[in-house]
């Protein structure tokens, strides 16, 4: 079945189209992340995919200190999405040290390490 796609391929495939899809369990209706073939909450195997709201908050954050000649400091954080799942990412558009716990952020799809990836920016308003 050359068209068969595993959960990782479904997620990554959506990213290449600029979409963020999140896996959701059809049995317990909880979201999970990272994508997998079963629900880590109830262990059900019926997984559907939903468009992410893209809204979330910074759960925790750090600045990776790097010499300026190697590109300078950058942010690494864990964001909790409104769907209740967490993902590692970084917040762009502000200084890495300005990223704060509980800050409201909005997801966008861009590139990280040469591949499509979910990044975040501070929410407006």
């Amino acid at each position, binding site marked *: 079945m050359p068209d068969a796609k595993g959960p990782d391929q479904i997620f990554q495939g959506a990213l290449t189209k600029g979409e963020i899809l999140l896996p959701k369990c059809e049995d317990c209706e909880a979201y999970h992340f990272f994508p997998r073939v079963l629900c880590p909450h109830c262990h059900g195997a019926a997984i559907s995919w939903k468009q992410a709201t893209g809204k979330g908050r910074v759960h925790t954050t750090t600045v*990776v*200190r790097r010499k300026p000649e190697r590109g300078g400091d950058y942010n690494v*954080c*864990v964001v909790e999405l409104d769907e209740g799942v967490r993902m590692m990412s970084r917040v762009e558009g502000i200084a890495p040290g300005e990223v704060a*716990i509980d800050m409201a952020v909005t997801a966008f799809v861009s590139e990280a390490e040469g591949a499509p990836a979910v990044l975040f920016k501070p929410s407006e308003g």
Partner: protein
Amino acid sequence: MTAELRGKSAIVGTGHAGFGEAHGLTAYDVMAQSALAALGDAGLNLFDVDGLFCTMMEDSMPALMAAEYLGIQPRFIDGTMSGGSSFVNYLTSATMALDAGLCDVALIVYGSNQRTASGRLVTASRPPAYEAPYNPRYPISAYAMAAARHMHEYGTTREQLADVAVAARAWAHHNPEAFERGPLTREDVLGARMVGDPLTVRDCCLVTDGGGAIVMVRADRARDFPKAPVYVLGSAAESSHRQISQMKDFTVTAARDSGARAFAAAGVTAADIQAVELYDAFTINTILFLEDLGFCAKGEGGAFVEGGRIAPGGILPVNTNGGGLSCVHPGMYGIFTVIEAARQIRGDAPGIQLKDIDLALAHGNGGVLSSQVTAILGSQNTL
């Protein structure tokens, strides 16, 4: 392990090698020197070893590599790799294997040459696919994010984190085996190079070479060896995640569960423990584990360690060899928590020897706060 296995096995030899810089030696060389040291301590030799408990930072089959290097053909091996906690975890499997007669002499062993080989953490593990694109610096970024969350929820301060490093150095100052023994102040830690906010380089463990080894036998023959036996009264593990982004609560580790079960098996509580040896890869670890193991309430770890309270002369002796922060940290430190706990009980600790230690706790941490393993060790008096 359960209460039925309480005191069924004993440590009868400990050894180490290559602390600091082991120039010209491979990781397996340091492993083998550590094995010889521990067997010599026990009055045994490699021909006596029929159970091998080993993992290394390199290779996918390190226990087999170690057995081959040592020239032994063990009838029982355990190469379970849960990171730095592995070696505390082997206390459980070694006790089970000894008790079941699957082996008679268990050798737990580790070695690393990461400092002289590369100057940084050597690891065969791959970055997780859903974290790698964001270039976290492993493992510092993970612990930095745990520290940040602890500070946010409980008001823990950078000064309190720094005091963990200062206390570790104060113990190391008296330990001739420790790699970093010079003076260290709170201001030194706070003013050091920031590597992953809120952690400076002095909030981070050392990068050294070194190896360690432990010899264990069944309790019924434990008194037939040169050194006083140290009994395994309880040991327990709990695993909560692999990737830091999957940690459910960044301020609570699985040490809460491993500790509770280890204490239950041993029939003692935190208040009974006279020496505490924790895997302090970063200063936040010591605070988290003191809380989760019940030495203080959740959120009070910062105040608990403040101002020399876990330093020599404080209220609780913690990491009496100087820990991974100041004594030795060759990639995985877990085995050294057991070795220092055992030596404090035997009365031959290399640095400050505490008086009349009958009960000590060794706690291993693996991955990024992922695997927690707690062991309670005791003297003959505790049986």
